C-alpha cells in the first residue's frame, strides 16, 4: 500500500519501513523550537524532571525565539525573556535570538524559514500551535505543550499517532484579487474548526505550486485552525530556490505515492473562488466579503505569522499606494528581516514603508503583538467594542484583547481595502 508524504516522513523519523494511520510511534525530533511564553515553563519542567544535572539531548537542535510579549512594561513578561536569556547563557545555546540585539528576529515561524531551520523531510516540533507553518517546506511540523517539549529537550523523542491525510487540490490560475489566506478561509469554512482534527492536511495543485514560499506558509499556518496536526506541501523548484539562499544542509524530498490512501479529497478551481472573511468569533465562520461589505470597522491590522510576511505587505501596498487609511491601521512586520524589506521592496516608485507611512498607517516593531492580545500595553490590541479586520489567524472571543471586540479575519488585500474605506470592502473595488 502506498504512503502519503506525511506518512513517509514519520516512518523515516521513527526508523520504520512503513507506517499507517493510527500507529503509535516514537519520533526522533530534528528541531525543537520554543519561545518566551512556553519556553520558561518547558525549562522548568525539564529541570524538575531531569534534575539539576539535566542535559539537553542535542543543543544544536534547540532553537529559541523570544517573540510573543517583547515590547511591554509587563514585569512578568520581561522576566520570561530573562529566563530564556539565562538558560541560553548557562547551556551555551547558539540558536538563541535575543531581544535588544541585532540577532533579534521576531515571530518564530517566519524566522525558522528565514534562518534555514526548515529542512524538507525532517521533523520540527514547536511549543506553538502555528508550528504547522513549516510544513510549507515538505517537512513534518506540529505544535505541542510544555511537558512534551520538556521530554524532547531531555530525550529528543516524542510519541505521535500517525494521522490520516486529507488532500486539498487547487487548480486554475490565481486571480490577482485572491491570496493564500482566501484559500485557507475557504477550506476552514467547508470543513469547520474540527474538520481536520488529528489529521494531516496536504495541499497541491497548480495554483498551490504557483504560490511563493511566503504564501505557502500562510496556507499551512492555518491548518491548526481546522484542528489539523500538520499542513504540508511537497518540495518543488520554488522551495529549492528559497532553500538555496538559506541553508547548505542536504535534505530528502518525499512525495505521496499514486496509491496512497487518503481520508478525503477536496478539489477547488481558484478561478471560481472569491475574497472571503471569517466573521466573529471563529475562523470557520466564512462569508464572502460581498456578503458583509459596508460593515463599519474601527481598526485594521496587518501582521503575525499568518499575515505579516513580505508577501502580505506587497499585497497591501498595491491597495494602499497613494491612498489614505480611514481607520487606525497597524502594520506589524512578522520579523526584523521583513521590517528591513519594507524599506527595500518597491511598488511602482515607492518603498512599501513609504506607501504605508503616507497612507497614515502605524508601523510597529516585529513581534506577535496583538494577534493574541498580549499585555495591556501591546500595540494594536483591541479595546472595548472595537471591530477589527485583521490578517491574523484567530478571532475567538477575547483573542485580540477585549472580550467585547469583534474580529474579522481576511486577506491583506481585503484588510487594506477595508482600511481605506473604513468599512469592510472587497479588494476588487480598489484594484
Amino acid at each position, binding site marked *: 500500500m502506498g504512503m502519503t508524504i506525511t506518512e513517509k516522513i514519520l516512518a523515516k523519523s521513527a526508523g520504520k519501513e512503513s507506517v499507517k494511520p493510527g500507529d*503509535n510511534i516514537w519520533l526522533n525530533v530534528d528541531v525543537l523550537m520554543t519561545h518566551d*511564553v*512556553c519556553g*520558561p*515553563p518547558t525549562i*522548568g*519542567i525539564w529541570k524538575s*524532571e*531531569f534534575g539539576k544535572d539535566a542535559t539537553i539531548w542535542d543543543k544544536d537542535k534547540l532553537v529559541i525565539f523570544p517573540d510573543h*510579549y517583547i515590547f511591554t512594561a*509587563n514585569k*512578568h*513578561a520581561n*522576566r*520570561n525573556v530573562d529566563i530564556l536569556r539565562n538558560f541560553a547563557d548557562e547551556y551555551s545555546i547558539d540558536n538563541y535570538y535575543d531581544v535588544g540585539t541585532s540577532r533579534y528576529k521576531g515571530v518564530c515561524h517566519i524566522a525558522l524559514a528565514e534562518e534555514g531551520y526548515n529542512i524538507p523531510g525532517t521533523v520540527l516540533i*514547536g*511549543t*506553538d*500551535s502555528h*508550528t504547522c507553518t513549516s510544513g510549507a517546506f515538505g517537512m513534518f511540523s506540529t*505544535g*505541542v*505543550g*510544555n*511537558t*512534551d517539549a*520538556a*521530554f524532547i529537550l*531531555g*530525550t529528543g523523542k516524542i510519541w505521535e*499517532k500517525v494521522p490520516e491525510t486529507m488532500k486539498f487540490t487547487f487548480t486554475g490560475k490565481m486571480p490577482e484579487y485572491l491570496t493564500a489566506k482566501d484559500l485557507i478561509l475557504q477550506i476552514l469554512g467547508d470543513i469547520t*474548526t*474540527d474538520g481536520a*482534527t*488529528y489529521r494531516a492536511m496536504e495541499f497541491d495543485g497548480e495554483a498551490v505550486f504557483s504560490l511563493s514560499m511566503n504564501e505557502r506558509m500562510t496556507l499551512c499556518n492555518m491548518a491548526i485552525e481546522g*484542528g489539523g*496536526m500538520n499542513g504540508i506541501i511537497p518540495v518543488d523548484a520554488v522551495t529549492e530556490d528559497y532553500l538555496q539562499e538559506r541553508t547548505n544542509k542536504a535534505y530528502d524530498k518525499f512525495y505521496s505515492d499514486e496509491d496512497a490512501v487518503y481520508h478525503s479529497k477536496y478539489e477547488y478551481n481558484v478561478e471560481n473562488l472569491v475574497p472571503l472573511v471569517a466573521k466573529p468569533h*471563529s475562523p470557520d465562520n466564512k462569508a464572502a466579503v460581498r456578503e458583509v461589505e459596508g460593515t463599519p470597522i474601527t481598526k485594521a491590522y496587518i501582521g503575525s505569522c499568518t499575515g505579516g510576511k513580505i508577501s502580505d505587505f506587497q499585497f497591501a501596498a498595491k491597495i494602499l499606494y497613494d491612498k489614505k487609511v480611514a481607520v487606525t491601521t497597524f502594520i506589524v512586520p512578522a520579523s526584523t528581516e521583513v521590517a528591513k524589506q519594507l524599506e527595500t521592496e518597491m511598488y511602482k516608485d515607492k518603498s512599501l514603508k513609504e506607501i504605508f507611512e503616507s497612507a497614515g498607517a502605524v508601523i510597529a516593531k516585529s513581534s506577535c503583538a496583538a494577534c*493574541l*492580545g*498580549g*499585555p*495591556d500595553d501591546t500595540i494594536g490590541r483591541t479595546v472595548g467594542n472595537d471591530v477589527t479586520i485583521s490578517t491574523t489567524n*484567530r478571532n*475567538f*472571543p*477575547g*483573542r485580540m*484583547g477585549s*472580550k467585547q471586540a469583534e474580529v474579522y479575519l481576511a486577506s491583506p488585500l481585503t484588510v487594506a481595502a477595508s482600511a481605506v474605506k473604513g468599512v469592510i470592502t472587497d479588494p476588487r473595488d480598489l484594484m
Partner: protein
Amino acid sequence: MENIVIGKAFVLGNNIDTDQIIPAEHLVYSMDDENEAKMYGKYALSSVPKEYSGLPLGNIPFVEEGKYESEYQIIVGGSNFGCGSSREHAPYALMKAGAKVIIAESYARIFYRNSVDGGFVIPYEIKEKLNEKVKTGDVLKIDIENNILVNNSTGETFSLNPLGDVLPIVSAGGLFKYARKSGMIE
C-alpha cells in the same frame, strides 16, 4: 490515579478554545511560584462569554470573583474542546482551579495531549451530547476503571469512551511518570 471521581458539573458548549480557557494576557505567571501559579486557577475559563458560562442557564462563573478555586470538579463540554493554541497553561489552569475530569464529545489534539502528558486532568470522550443532558451543578460520579458516569442528581447512567492508547500514561499520572515506569528514562 483515583478510581472514583465525584464532583459538581460545570457545563459548556462546543469549541471552547484555549483563549476562553485562559486568556493570553495571563500566560506570564510562573508555574513554580505558588503565589503566582494560583492565578491560573483564578482566571480559568474567564473568557467564556457570560451567556455560555455554566449551561443551560449561563451567567455562572467557573471561579467566583476573588477566589482561586472552583466549586466544580467535572467540566462537561461539547465538540472540539480546547481548540486553538498549544498553551499547556490551559489544562493546567483547569487543574489549578480544582477540575479533575473533562468530558466532551471531542478534543483538539494539542489540548488532549497536554491534559494527558502533563497529568493535569483526565480528558474523557463520550458519544452522546452530554452537555445537553447534564446541568451545571449536577453531582456526577465517574467510575474510571469501568468508564461509567452516573448523574447522581438524576440517576441517569452514561458510558464513557475507554481511554485506549493513552490509558497507561493517564494511569501513571503523566508522560514523565509513564516513561520512568516503562524504563524509557531514569
